[in-house]
């Protein structure tokens, strides 16, 4: 049973992982500009980084997913929200570090995001609001990905069970 699990997980990971990697690296972004894409990719990795447990947002193809969603289905409001939000963050980054988001160090990106996420529950101003949008999209894209579900969370369900699991009364 346990081995069966592992084998199936491994299969899923390779199949899904290749697909996502393909989208993220080889293909050019469809909604974002190249620069925007690079920034989003790094910001998302800052929000959900690779650690010793599992790969992060970059490997999970989060930016590619959001790029495709924005191009294909999000409304004009969302498109505008992302474009403008990214512009503001880039401007803040230039002012603070004299470089763009993709050009600063991971630690500097943490500093940058800390500045715009002081009170997530009551975001003030367009940058803090955009942080919530960015974070929400990152979390959804990551935790619904193959890496998020199978590696990070290591979710065990969505399988056929002969017997229920848990404590019988």
């Amino acid at each position, binding site marked *: 049973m346990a081995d069966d699990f592992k084998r199936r997980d491994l299969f899923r990971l390779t199949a*899904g992982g290749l697909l996502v990697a393909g989208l993220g690296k080889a293909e050019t972004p469809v909604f974002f500009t190249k620069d925007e894409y690079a920034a989003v990719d790094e910001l998302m990795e800052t929000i959900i980084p690779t650690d010793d447990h599992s790969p992060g947002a970059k490997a999970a193809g989060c930016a590619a997913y959001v790029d495709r969603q924005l191009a294909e289905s999000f409304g004009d409001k969302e498109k505008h929200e992302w474009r403008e939000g990214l512009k503001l963050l880039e401007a803040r980054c230039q002012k603070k570090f004299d470089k763009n988001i993709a050009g600063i160090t991971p630690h500097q990106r943490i500093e940058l995001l800390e500045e715009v996420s002081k009170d997530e529950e009551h975001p003030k101003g367009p940058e803090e609001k955009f942080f919530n949008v960015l974070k929400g999209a990152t979390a959804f894209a990551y*935790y*619904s990905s193959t890496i998020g579900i199978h590696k990070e969370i290591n979710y*065990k369900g969505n399988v056929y069970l002969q017997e229920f699991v848990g*404590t019988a009364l």
Partner: protein
Amino acid sequence: MEHSHEPMANVDFNTVYDAIVVGSGAAGGMATYVLAKHGLKVLLLEAGKKQDLTKELHSMQWPYDHPRRGEMPQSDHALNFNEYTFRKSPYAKGMNYNHVYSYVQNWGGSDYSKNIVVDEKDNPYSGTSYAWVRARLLGGKTAIWGRLALRLSDYDFKAASRDGFGMDWPISYKDIEPYYDKVDLFLGISGHKENLPWLPDSIFQRELKLNPADMLLRESLKKMDRTLTPYRAGVTTDGLKHNHYRSRCFGRGACNRHVGGCDIHAAFDSPTGVIYPAMDTGNVTLRTNATVYEVTVDPNTGKASGVSFIDSETKRTYKAKSKIVVLGASTLESARLLLLSKSRQHPNGLANSSNHVGHNFCEHIMGPGITGLVKDLVGKPRTLDDGHPGGFYVPRFRNLKTKNPKFIRGYGFEGGSGCTMIPGNAMSTPGFGAARKKKVRDEAGAFIDMGAFGEVLPRYENYVEIDPNIKDRWGIPVLKFNYKFGPNEKAMAKDMADSAQEMFEEAGIEIVSLNREILTEGWSIHELGTSRMGNDPKTSVLNQFQQAHDVPNLLVVDGSSHVNASCQNPTWTIMALAWRSCDHIADKLKKGEV
């Protein structure tokens, strides 16, 4: 013998059927089955299409295998809580989306039920705020229902005698008990015996198991003389020898994702559970895309003579004739149909000499709920926690042995715990970065939550009527709501939150969030009571066999017949009552007494 289950476009309109059944959900489906089994020739008319549920539901699809991870296109929209309160109905009016759906579409994975729930643009309604969820397809709302299958007891049927509010039902538990048994055995139900007089046990198949957090709460509640029992699921967990359209449950948990629905039909749905078996008798003619807009009456006798319907696609109209007419279009749609069916003999609408049709409208109040964290479970190795068709149920404990000074009646909680496919805390945990990532992972399996469903009192002044100014896509006048929660509900809702807090504290569960806000009217999707049963034709619409007092060959077998809402979910009772009434009318027909 197996017969075709395909709908027919060309129904024989010269035949006088024994019965016309309107609607194919829990109520109409069960009525069709029972009448057909009695050898009666039944014409079943359903407004929606027959959908291939396996294709629609994609129960086992992983989010990353769906192009939008289960979300519907941005060109479509699902109403949310705020929109039901801040916008005015008809809710889709002036919205630029291709389709506007009810809030259930927001339950992660809305792309899977877009062909199941109705488009508000085609199906408007007006009046006070109400979140009205409708499913127009063969099987109605049973395609996506939550499956919590509970019995009512004399605490409900005789509630008026206990606390003086409203009216007793014209039946008691012993009248309906044999029919609950029949429904249990025919459809299959999972649960654990608790011997509670206010929540009678069913004849259960294999029961669900509990997660560690559930067990913790169960043990703690015992000390408070309260019960936590495994979800009583309208699901066949052992399989059914007499029904090969339905598999046994394999604990895939899919029915708790994508809005719900089980593509192997272990969870009850009306097509595989009752309609195909009914069609296999050879006695049923099924016509889908048939929206009934009037019950016709014989101008001489004033009795029902059949129905008029419009083809939902071609918009052609037809008339069909029958000896009896059985309405199972759902609580509000059946009331609408009665009110629309005006004639010389029934100027107020059919079966409405009492002026009670559309009134005493009741349901369940929702909103208050709680989420907690079990500290001992944080950081534990991952386990499989959601391989079941439901978590747990905490039955009513108020106004049973003692009297609460602030409100009458009661409420129960539905809940669950453990790790789900996309854990809730993955979205809600504050912060970002490596520490947050670890926190999400460590805590993903340690949460437990529950939300309350409380009885809304049946009050005459809560009602629906016809809005002559607004029509649906087919030109049929729509319903106008005049419905509000009252002081009893609000006092009860406050107690729901207080008691939830007390129970979690008592169990040593850290409270992460406590919601005290009431959700919009309608949220429970348990609308009931618009044509109540009773012994007095002056104050009720139907007799104890769901026959209209005014029109003995007309039955209304859905939740509109319920005299009060209880706090237990209604569907199992709807089916038990429909069975009982259809046995009764079939007997009368055979004896020539209708």
